[in-house]
């Protein structure tokens, strides 16, 4: 299939069931809210070793936040509830509580709740104050710049992680440029995040390794440097491959994000350098959700 001058491979992206939650971080100004969020979402690229995958969903105006201050919403994804709870608590404690002027709120409503400030309140050493407004409880924890306000719990929902596509290019410069354009195109789309640095991955992985200790290793079928010695899937003129991984709350959110991203690449001048758009999968046996690129782009 050729979409607007770009070849779309007949393959699919394989994605997994995950658990997700949304939190809202506010501060006196965007600068400090960003510091807190960058810290919170740092080292949260892949569940393989980070515990969770997290990213800034979008920037929020003062009128959109619970306390009329600017902020950001963050989406967190994890494979299990316990890991999500643990990482949320640890990261809020170390990255949001510590950051001047911040406050944290739940960004989701649901019946399945997980603790947000429930255990963090003990940092107040008995001076913490509880406030309940309608059905939501908040904790005011005294800190050196005043008070840290945090909601007791947030909701948890089922979500999808690992939606992806690969950009196959003749050179690295064009490949990176195409990925940057794709990320820019979806940066304001709600309900999705791209957890990797800048939204782009260069170390796509396959399951397993020749070394017993590793559960994942380099995806040699897509490594241009190994074309001549492995069972490569790359055409001869491909010299660089980068991947964009998208986690979303629903199938449609990811579907839309993949479509928008590829559309934005197809409008670029450097599309002549893009050999094809492909996707990463594990043969369809591991993931519950399949994003067939040609169906997505129809």
């Amino acid at each position: 299939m050729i979409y607007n001058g770009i070849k779309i491979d007949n393959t699919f992206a394989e994605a997994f069931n995950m658990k997700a939650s949304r939190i809202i971080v506010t501060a006196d100004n965007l600068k400090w809210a960003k510091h807190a969020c960058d810290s919170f979402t740092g080292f949260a690229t892949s569940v393989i070793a980070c515990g969770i995958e997290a990213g800034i969903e979008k920037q929020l105006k003062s009128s959109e936040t619970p306390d009329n201050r600017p902020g950001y919403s963050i989406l967190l994804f994890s494979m299990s509830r316990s890991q999500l709870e643990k990482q949320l608590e640890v990261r809020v404690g170390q990255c949001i509580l510590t950051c001047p002027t911040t406050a944290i709120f739940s960004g989701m409503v649901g019946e399945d709740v997980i603790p947000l400030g429930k255990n963090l309140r003990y940092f107040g050493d008995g001076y913490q104050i509880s406030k309940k407004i309608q059905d939501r409880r908040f904790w005011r924890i005294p800190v050196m710049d005043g008070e840290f306000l945090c909601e007791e719990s947030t909701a948890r929902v089922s979500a999808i992680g690992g939606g992806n596509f690969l950009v196959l290019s003749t050179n690295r410069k064009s490949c990176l440029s195409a990925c940057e354009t794709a990320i820019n195109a979806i940066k304001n789309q709600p309900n999705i995040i791209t957890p990797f640095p800048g939204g782009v991955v260069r170390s796509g992985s396959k399951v397993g390794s020749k070394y017993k200790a590793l559960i994942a290793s380099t995806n040699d079928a897509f490594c241009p440097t190994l074309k001549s010695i492995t069972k490569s899937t790359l055409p001869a003129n491909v010299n660089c491959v980068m991947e964009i991984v998208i986690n979303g709350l629903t199938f449609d959110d990811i579907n839309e994000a993949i479509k928008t991203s590829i559309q934005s690449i197809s409008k670029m001048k450097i599309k002549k350098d893009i050999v094809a758009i492909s996707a990463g999968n594990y043969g369809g046996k591991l993931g519950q959700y399949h994003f067939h690129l040609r169906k997505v782009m129809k």
Partner: protein
Amino acid sequence: MNPVILKLKKKIKYRIDMSFLSNAYKDASKLSSQIISYGNKQFKVKELFSIKGSDIKNIIIKSSVDLMDNIGKGLNNINITVHGNVGYSFGEQMLSGKLILYGNALDYAASGIKGGSIFIYGNSGDYTGGKTNHGNIGIVDGFLYVKGNIGNNSIERMRRGNVIIEGNIGDYACNDMLSGTIIIKGKIGKIFAEGMKRGTIFTKDKKVVKEYARSNDAEYNFTKFYFKEISNVISKKIFLENKNLIRYYGNTNSSNLSEVFLFKL
């Protein structure tokens, strides 16, 4: 479905116990045939009230008078709107749902509520949001808004929840408060907030803070947020800004961990 509308068929001269409205009826016909006492006789509801509509979870009472007691008593997941005055124990020990009153209430309104929201767009009598007339427990949880004034012994033994009084509050109010948040925009009577343990009070009356130490002038994330949330609940913008607030925390009585925000209008 249209809300059930109750209207008195004729002027009443004896008190009526309206707590039957809080029962979970299957449909409006069951409500119509409910037996209630009036004077020394028993009647069906439809003999005293004209009843229209079918949505049993939303009830409107028109031409209410202050002889109608216990409206919304123990209410659970039902919304009742009342036009006119009501008698004693309006919304007493309510569990959930919403009660709106466009009129005045007699004593024990919102006493011992455990959840839900009560809006009184008028005045309310003694023991409003206080102890029930047969118990020793005040507001356990929930939301109370009164546009007018409230009487003596109000908001006693409050444990949780939010109370907003736009008018004045009588004597012996807010005593033995365990926790919760109270905003009082008007004047305060004598003997106020005695035996308070925790909780937050917003007031402009300086006599309240006599025994408190002045806390800090730091920004309060909480207040900004709190007023926005409360404004949403009462659909009306709350007036307070951080710059107009002075926080008092730390009482001469060491077991008192309550805080008072003094505001200027």
